Each structure stands twice: as C-alpha cells, then as structure tokens.
C-alpha cells in the first residue's frame, strides 16, 4: 500500500513539473503567434491610437515575463483572467460550462466505443483468422482510416438529412439545457467512436491472440477447462492490460481532440471554444483551454499508469524498487 502511495506521490510531483514547463511553453507559443491582437479586435478602421489604447487597456504592452507571471499567479489561485473580448466576464464563467459539455460528450463516446471495441476485439482475437475476425478487422481498419470530419459528414447525411432521425447540428436551443436535448450527443459521439473503434479493437485483438497462444492458456485448455472459463477468467485480464493503456492514453486525446467534431456539429464544448479563441486570437482563453487539456492529458496518463501497475504486479514491483 505504502509503495503504491509513494508511486502516486512521485507521479503527482512529476505531473506538477510537467505542468509548470507546459504552462511556459503554451504561453510562449501563443506569444509568438504572428499578428496583433488589438489590431485584430478593432479591424481595419482602427487608428494607431485606437490600437494603442486597447493594448494599454488590456495590459498587452507589459513585458512578456510580467504577463506570464501574472497569468501563472492567476492560474494558481484559480483565476484564469478575462477573455480579451469580454471585459467584465471571467474566463471561469465561460470555460467550465463548455468543459462540462465536452466531458459529457467524451463520456458518451467512451460508453459507446469502449465496450463495443473491446467486445469485438476479444471476439476477433478468439476467433483468429475466421470470417468474423476478417469482418471485424476490415471494419476496424475502414473506420480508423476515416477522419472524424469525414465520418461526421457521412453520419449527418445518413441520419440527419436522409432518415431525419437525428438533429444535424448539435446546438443547444437557447433557454434549454443539454439534458433536455441529449439526442444532440449521438452523432458527435458516433464520429468519435468511428475513430477509436478500429484503434482499440485491433489492439484488443492482437493482445487477445497473444494471450490465447501463451503457454498457460494452452495448459488450461488442455487441462479440459471450458473455453469460456479460460477466456474470461485467465486470458481476458492479461489481454486487457495493453488495451487499458491505450484507452487511458487516448482519454487526453479524446478530450482535446474533440475540436474537430465539436466544430463540425456546432456542439458548444471546449473544443469549439478553443477553435473560436484561436480564430480570434483570444490569448487568455487559448491559454486556459490548452492548459486544461494538458492537465487532463497528464492526469489520464497518470491514472492509466497507476491502474496498469495495479493490474500488472511486475510493473508495480519494479516501480517500487526504483
């Protein structure tokens, strides 16, 4: 127990260092983006004086390090600052609503693609080289090759335009909440599922094949154990390990990578917010979104590692000995 705790503490420590370095990189990257935010805000009829007044008012004329320090100070105390465009409105009040929406979308997608791809991956692995395996593998490859903006358009044209079963845009009607419009989640979640399905089911399939060919499984089968028992009791736990890692590693992507899907469907999540922020060069908002994605990415990787070490004693022991 103490060993696991020390792993967690050490991982948390390295997470903090990662975040500190990342925050500096994010800030500097945004800083070197070409163009001028004040000019962008005011447009063409802005005089130099107007641009200068706006830069001054928004603190854009201060030295870079001072602005970085101010930003980090704010982040640490939970104040993400104000959007360049929304004086008097804190980023917190814009961001968290969107983060909530993205989490719900990510969770919906997760609930669809994880069981689906694992079941079909196991099935393909168990029935290696059979017709079922070929069909699942083909389908997995095909969906993996399709980027989400292509599969999204397919889904829209089939379920939205032709069959009219689902709304073709995922906008929450004004005055209503996401929970009274859950149908808007389906198509974005399916687009994500398409991308993830091939990836995870193939990983699951190959690890299942590997395990099924291992000596202990063969021994169990030869011993006369029922196949189902061998698969579920012995093979599955080991075959799940690499898949869990992949799923964990992709949770960060799932969250940050929703940009395309959210923009395509007009879904009001963090991805589309980040897109808007980049388009309008809304520096504080870009920084807040990217930092949050980094945190989620790092956290999900950390949780995966811990889960992995829990499931695989060899890793746990090695980790403890270091």
């Amino acid at each position: 127990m103490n060993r696991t705790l020390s792993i967690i503490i050490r991982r948390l420590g390295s997470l903090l260092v990662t975040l500190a370095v990342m925050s500096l990189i994010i800030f500097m990257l945004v800083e070197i983006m070409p163009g001028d935010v004040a000019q962008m805000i005011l447009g063409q009829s802005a005089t130099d004086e107007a641009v200068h007044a706006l830069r001054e008012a928004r603190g854009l004329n201060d030295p870079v390090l001072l602005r970085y320090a101010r930003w980090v100070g704010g982040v640490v105390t939970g104040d993400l600052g104000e959007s360049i465009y929304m004086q008097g409105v804190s980023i917190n009040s814009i961001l968290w609503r969107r983060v909530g929406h993205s989490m719900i979308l990510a969770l919906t997608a997760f609930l669809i693609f994880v069981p689906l791809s694992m079941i079909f991956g196991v099935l393909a692995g168990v029935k290696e080289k059979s017709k079922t395996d070929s069909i699942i593998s083909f389908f997995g490859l095909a969906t993996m090759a399709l980027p989400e903006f292509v599969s999204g358009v397919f889904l829209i044209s089939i379920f939205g335009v032709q069959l009219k079963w689902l709304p073709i845009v995922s906008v929450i009607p004004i005055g209503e909440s996401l929970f009274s419009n859950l149908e808007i989640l389906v198509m974005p979640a399916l687009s994500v599922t398409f991308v993830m399905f091939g990836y995870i089911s193939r990983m699951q399939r190959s690890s299942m094949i590997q395990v099924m060919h291992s000596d202990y499984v063969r021994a169990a089968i030869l011993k006369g154990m029922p196949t189902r028992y061998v698969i579920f009791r012995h093979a599955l736990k080991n075959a799940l390990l690499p898949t869990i890692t992949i799923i964990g590693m992709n949770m960060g992507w799932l969250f940050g990578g929703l940009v395309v899907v959210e923009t395509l469907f007009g879904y009001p999540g963090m991805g589309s917010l980040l897109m808007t922020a980049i388009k309008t060069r809304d520096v504080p908002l870009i920084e807040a979104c990217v930092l949050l994605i980094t945190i989620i990415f790092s956290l999900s990787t950390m949780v995966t590692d811990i889960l992995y070490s829990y499931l695989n004693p060899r890793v746990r022991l090695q980790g403890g000995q270091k």
Partner: protein
Amino acid sequence: MKRTALILLLLVAMVTTPLFAGGDKEAKSSEKVIRIAEQVPGLITPGVWDGQVFSMNSSMYEYLVEINVGTGQLDPVLATDWSTTDGKDWTFHLRKGVKFHDGSDFTSKDVQYSLERTQDPTIGHLKKQDFSVVQSIETPDDYTVIIHLKESRPTFVYQLTDYNMAMLSSEYDYAKYGESKPMGTGPFMMSQYIPKESIAMVKNPNYWDPALPKLDKILIYFVGDIDASVSMLEAGRVDVVTFVTPVIKNRLSKIEGISVISPYQEQRFVAMNVDMKPWDDNRVRLAFKYAMDPQIIAKSVTQMNLGEGAQYNETPIMNMLSEYKELPLRQRDIPKAKALLAEAGYPDGVSVALYYASDHPFGKELAQTLKELALPAGFDLELKGFTRDVYLSQYWLNVPTSITGWGGRIDPSMLLGLAFKGGGPWNESHLNDKRINDLIDKITEEIDVQTRMGYYHELQDIFYAEGALLNVQVPYLVAINDRVVDYRQPLTMIPQYKYTDIR
C-alpha cells in the same frame, strides 16, 4: 461466448438508446421568435465594436437617424428633426419619452456624452478621426442638441448612421458592463447572454414606437463555423444566417423555402501605390486597367454576373450611390496594355507584389483572378496573402499593390478625405494630386447639392484617366428562410429587425 457477446451488446444498446430519442424539436410557443446564426462576436461595445454581430447590437442600441432602405434617405429615430444653415452649426431635436433599458430617460446629455466619448483617448474609439471635426456641443434643454463644427460639413448628419455611433446612456458604465450587460434604447433588450455561445433578446415593452417591434424575441446563436450555421438553416433550426459565401449561395439556391439575398455591397479596393515602381507611371496603371475584364472578375470572384451582385469601376464611388458617374466600362485590350507597358519602359513585362488578406471574404479569389488576367499583358503579380490582422498591421499602406476591404458609406465624402487625399491616414495608393485634393475639399464643404454632384463627377473623371484604383464591389450575402418577412439592412450594415416579422 456468443451469448455473452449478445448480452453485452444489448447492454450497450440499453445505455445508448435513450440518447436516440426524438429528432428536432419543434417551436413550442406561439410567440413570434426569429433565430439567427452569426459569427462569434469580438468586442461589442459601441465605439470599439468591430462590426460583427450586427443583429445583436443593432437591436439593442439605436441611433439618432437611420437609412430608409426604400428611399435611401435619412429617417428620424432618436432625433425627430435636424437642421443646419451653413453646414457648420447643427441643431437636433430629440424624441421625447424615450427610455433606456435600465429605465432612465434619454436626453440631450446622452447625445453629448455619446459624441464626446469618440474623443476619449482611453477608449480608442473607431470614429475618433471622423468626429474630431466637432468643436463643441451645447444642450440648451433636455431635448435639443446644438453641435458646432470646426469647419463646414454639409453631410455631417450621415456620420451619425455609423454603426459605432449608437446613443449610449451617460449614466451607465460601458467600460465595465459594455461587453457583458449591453444596454441602450433599442427595440429589444437582453434577457439571457451566454458568452461565446448565444444571446436571447426580448421585446422592449417601453419602446417609443408602440407599433414596433413586430417580433417578441430574437435568439442569436454564435456559431464559429459557417457550414454549421448553414446546416442549422437547412434543418430549420435558425431563420437567418449572415456572411454567406457565393459557393453556399449556389448550394442553397436549390433548396425550397430558403433564399439568399444581398442587402448591400462592400468594396474591395485594389490600390496601386504611386510612390513605388512601376505604378508611379500612369501608363503602367492604364496598362493594368486594360488587362482587366470586369465580367470575368465579377464571375470568378463572386460567381455572379456583373451588375447582379457584383460591380466594378475605377473610382472610389460605388455604382449604387447617386454620386456615381456612369463612365464607360474599359474593355480588355491586351495589345494596348502591352504597348502602354513598353512605352513606360517595360517591354519585357514587369513583376510586382500584390498583398491581400487571405482570410477576408473574396480576398483570395480576387487576388488570383487579377494575377491570371494581368499575366498576358506582361504583369507578373507575386501574390502575398496574410491573415487579416497581419496584413493590416504589418503590410497595408506600405506595399506596391494591395487589396483591402471597405464597407460602403452612404455619404462617400468622409472616406475620400481619409483614403484618397494627400496625407490621409488610410491613403493606400499614396495619391497626392493637387486637383484631387482640392476637389475632395470642395466636396466636403460644398452646401449646394448640385454643385457638389458636379465635383463628384469631375473627381471620377480624373480617377478614370489617371487614378490608381480598381473598385470591385462584392455582395454581402444573407440566407433567410421564407418565414422571415421584411428583412431590412441598408448600406450602413445595421439590420433593422424592428420591422421584421415572421410568418
């Protein structure tokens, strides 16, 4: 194994089935509601408003006067009448009984505040330049405003139609609440605002005209992607989509119940910098003009025919304005262009850079069309496209050739001084011609309409013969469904939703 897989599949289906319930929801109440998809707003406080999200601001704020889309003339709004004898001293009488959304009265003090605010250096007001002509403002009573100008400006009243000249309350803190709780005297007031996502506005019950507005609610979705906005229109989720492209227009033209209209046009000035080679020689400028084909420009840039949604001329005056002089359309003549170029000392042609904002509507298309058209005459245009902010802040005004977007102005005189007079702050082509400077001064100060018109015509003749400008006019396109009745949006770009109704 098969049974287990089946059970698991059923479980997944059970989790996901509720999500599939129901398709698009129908409108639930009998209220008259219009739904609009617009771009995500930038700054919205009048003064520093970049001109996006017109539907929101134009419904919440109001102006002293507005353009009548039918007649093109000025109609009274917050000012009931106005007068001047010499173009220098202007008297405005204000409408009585007008209230701001916070319940306070609209008076002459508010007009004074709104005008003086243009000169406040901390605001960075976009109309600072235009209103620097104001000498002083008097408010003899609550409903009279007298504006004294430094010099005669017979068309000064048109300045008050600019979208940044909304009348603001002198008692409201716009620096603090302008972006989050906007408030004016307009026909609609804010009821719910989710930043970067949507805004709901309801009818102002205290609006000074009891017959207006006709709608009960305006709902605006801020959608970052134009294709998503158009999908919403096709799905019946919104009634109006602004900033539609010609490609989308063509696609929508096949759909019943949706029309794409062009309420006004914008200008794209192709400016040749006369301080730089080769444009310092008028023969080169003429050669370039002879290489152009207005019909092809219109077709390939806007996918519309010349005269339908696109226009072309070689002067700063838009074809749709009364000040425009009908000059013959120069026909493409490559031999003549080549000869002129050779005469100017470029027998083997000339290479020149063309700068433009690649992310601005029509910019890329126009740049490519110009390059193709000019090539046979011996012009090798090097295309230099940048994002609009980079283009404006780093290149514009200091490059040999440029394409810049300009909104139309009902009164073109102010733009002349700013963009075509020697020393003007936005003089892209660096023209400094005494005849042009004098004519611009005369146009700005002349009180007699006919005489002023004569000056306008004279100016356009000079531009046609020696100017350094191509004026390509491109349509601003709005897609609306047929439920929308009486959509009005004059050249000032401010939609007038108070007149709009819904079937």
